[in-house]
């Protein structure tokens, strides 16, 4: 029996590799395992072919497209999904989540988890980015509603680099 050990949002999972419903099939993507096996549906699948960034999660702190990552490649890795940014008990939100709420930085919200995680990685590396750096970092995340302008403002606000912060 092959076992995979994956840490997701700080919790360790030992997953069996196999073809039964509770097991991880070698063909399963990380997106599938997160959503269908672990029930973490905050990770969204927009295209399932690496073209939209909706499924972005952090692997060892770095954004990856979970729809193009096989779960069997993730042994020993530490994954953070959108659910991992804010524990369900308690009211703590990541500053990025708070800023996205304050700026109304979403319309349909389907791209939001992937965008927030990509932005999280940016701010971890570069706590004071300018607008152009934010745009470059998010250029792999597709938003069809055009919330881009408010997203950039929200990321800058979360970084504390926005000049004119708009609070409610």
């Amino acid at each position, binding site marked *: 029996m092959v076992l995979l050990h994956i840490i997701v949002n700080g919790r360790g999972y030992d997953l069996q590799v196999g073809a039964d419903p509770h097991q991880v099939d070698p063909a399963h993507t990380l997106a599938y395992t997160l959503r269908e096996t672990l029930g973490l549906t905050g990770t969204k699948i927009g295209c399932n*072919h690496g073209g939209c960034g*909706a499924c972005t999660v952090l692997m060892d702190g770095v954004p990856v497209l979970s729809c193009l990552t096989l779960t069997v490649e993730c042994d020993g890795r530490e994954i953070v999904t959108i659910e991992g940014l804010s524990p*369900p008990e308690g009211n703590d939100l990541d500053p990025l989540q708070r800023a*996205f709420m304050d700026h109304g930085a979403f319309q349909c919200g389907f791209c939001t988890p992937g965008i927030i995680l990509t932005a999280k990685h940016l701010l971890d590396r570069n706590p004071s980015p300018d607008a152009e750096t934010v745009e*470059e970092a998010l250029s792999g995340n597709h*938003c069809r509603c055009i919330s*881009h*302008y408010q997203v950039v403002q929200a990321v800058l606000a979360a970084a504390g680099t926005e000049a004119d912060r708009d609070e409610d």
Partner: protein
Amino acid sequence: MRTDSRFIGRPSHRQDARAIVTGRAEFIDDLKLRGMLYARVLRSPFAHARVVAVDTEKAEAVPGVKAVLTHKNVPDWKAGTPFHIRVLDSKVRFVGDGVALAAAESERAAEEALEAVHVEYEPLEAVFDVDEALAGDAPQLYEAFPGNVVPGGFPLYGPDCLTGIRLGDVEQGFREADAVGEGTYKYETVANPLPLEPPGVIAHWEGPDRLTIWAATQSASWHRFVMLPSLGFPDIRAIATQCGGSFGSKNYSLMPCFYAAALARAAGRPVKMCFSKEEQFGAYTLRPGSRFKGRIGIRKDGTVTAVSGSWLFDTGACSDIPQAQVAVGCGELQLMLRCANWDLTGTIVLTNRPPSGVVRGFGGQELESALLPALFEALEKAAIDPVDFFRKNYVKPGDAYLWRNGKPYVDRGVDYSEALERGAETFGWHRKWKGWLVPTRVDGQTRIGVGVSVHGNADVGEDVSEAHVRLTPDGRAVVHACVSESGSGQRSSLCRMAPEGRQLPLDRVGVSPPDTLVNPFEFGLVGSRGTWAVGGAVISAAEKARAALLARAAPLLGAGEEELDTTDGRVYVRGRSDRGLSWSRVMGIVRTCSGSARYEEDFTVPNFLALFVEVEVDTGTGKAAVREVLAATDVGRIIDPQALEGQLRGCFGAAGLDTALFEETVLDRTTGRILNGNMIDYKWRTFRDLPGFRNVILETPMPTHRFGAVGVGEISTSPGPSAVLMAVSNALGVRMTGYPLTPQRILEAL
């Protein structure tokens, strides 16, 4: 900021904001029902073929497979206008048309089953061009529609539904014209509205005659009232999940509903049918194609003297509700062109490409994008500034127009000239406009040009909404309205409007789940009707609930109802806040005070949007790019400033402005296959491709409801293509006539 409300026009968190940023908002594919099966579809590789034989024996033997359906054993359900779309048919009419369905314990098992289905096709000649489809020797898609023409007139709009515009005497009109624009112009990018979340539904037969449908949708009730006659009138309950974008396309999901409901009935278990991205690209809803052949005459003073011609509306392989799109498009054209003489005929044509359906811009964007190039030619000949032209011609209070049902209406809204002029000033139009086919600036091989177009819609007050508002003794209010959330923030906007401004804090107002079982009738979030039509019903219901509360409080406070007011869960004598009672004292704890109201359609207050664009064209590479956009509108009153800004900026997407530049569904016209049906090849804007964007939003009170607001969100996409066409023409000094303006097209023009 006006003082009659604490919430209207001020930013605040959308009610679902926390769920969205924490990943807990529940979209269709996040739902799992007990015993639920997964559905997949076997699709045709041919654009037009007869299914001669289909064998499912091996498919049925695949472990985990619970139902396999073909045209031989699907229910005899029919949809479309008029009825002609079957769940599966013995003929396929586009590459991607359904041939067989499977439901299984897993998607993988369903796919394996379909791989084991054996199909024999007899390929038929296919047709992809509307003029070729109308030719006498063209292959015929349906026996019921000879000549590949679908009858005009949408039954819901009544016997006089617009199928074109016929008024006055066009021959006389052309004799009076100083300049005429003429030609054949195509807006046939058939782009994909492409919401990020693919369409999906779950169907579950709770009994032989009781179907529940969960759907990703902008209009939950369409899954009930549109599907009812198609399915032979079972009791349908429709529940909307959080919807990952729609732009019209998920107004209702016909084929996913058909497939899931048929499989769920066959398997006796709930079935989830979520389309893949490839299916969303190639087998769901494309923007209709539009071809205008005709003439427009104008006088030197900008008066339009005549419009005549033929409008070919390419609906693809089936007819969902194109008759409604033709009717609304013809109405919208009259709002932007005041003219006494019309002879415009719409014809709905079938072709062997993936079907068109409801898309943001609903008829008007298609008609105007194809027809305005002819107008621009006339304006160029007469040397008329387009801002002057639109100011003169956009419908004004007192003007009459025929709306979708063929009946005349008189505009009782506001004059949008001010919004147009303020937009022009802020954009710098008068400085940047140098005349037709004259660039604003030339900088080496970069040429800058500007363009403008307008659009409006009198459907902001369309159709029926019913609402119920319940005030509870704990000082809260619940709005019962069947309104889903697909990105416009409308559920939260209703909560701003319901409490009558001062009555309750926003966190004490809730809205019922979008479920047809527990709510009164709601037509849906179409035509930007959420603000006025839905809002109107909710406001009236809230006023009645308030009146019931005050009537109960009056004897307790020893005052007349008209002397009372209520704020923050307390009723008091106006001006004497010490003489008051909490709602719990007024109602007791075993009572609620409620009110119900119904909004009836009203087509007399059109909305308006102007888009100003500045483009730059590299004459070396042929690449055109938008540098700056300005949206100008008057909304009467801003309800939610963040939502409104987002909707206006949404003009690029949803097969909108960018269909003039680079966004299109590329069809191989030999095989009928889509060549760019994935997110890599279907190019679109990234975060690095954002032009400057400004909004000019006026607030002139409208005669709608107590907040005097109208919706405008839908129409931001519609003026985009023609405005960009004008701007690129001016930049190049060459009249451009086709979409999209790819580098190849631009280099050829040079």
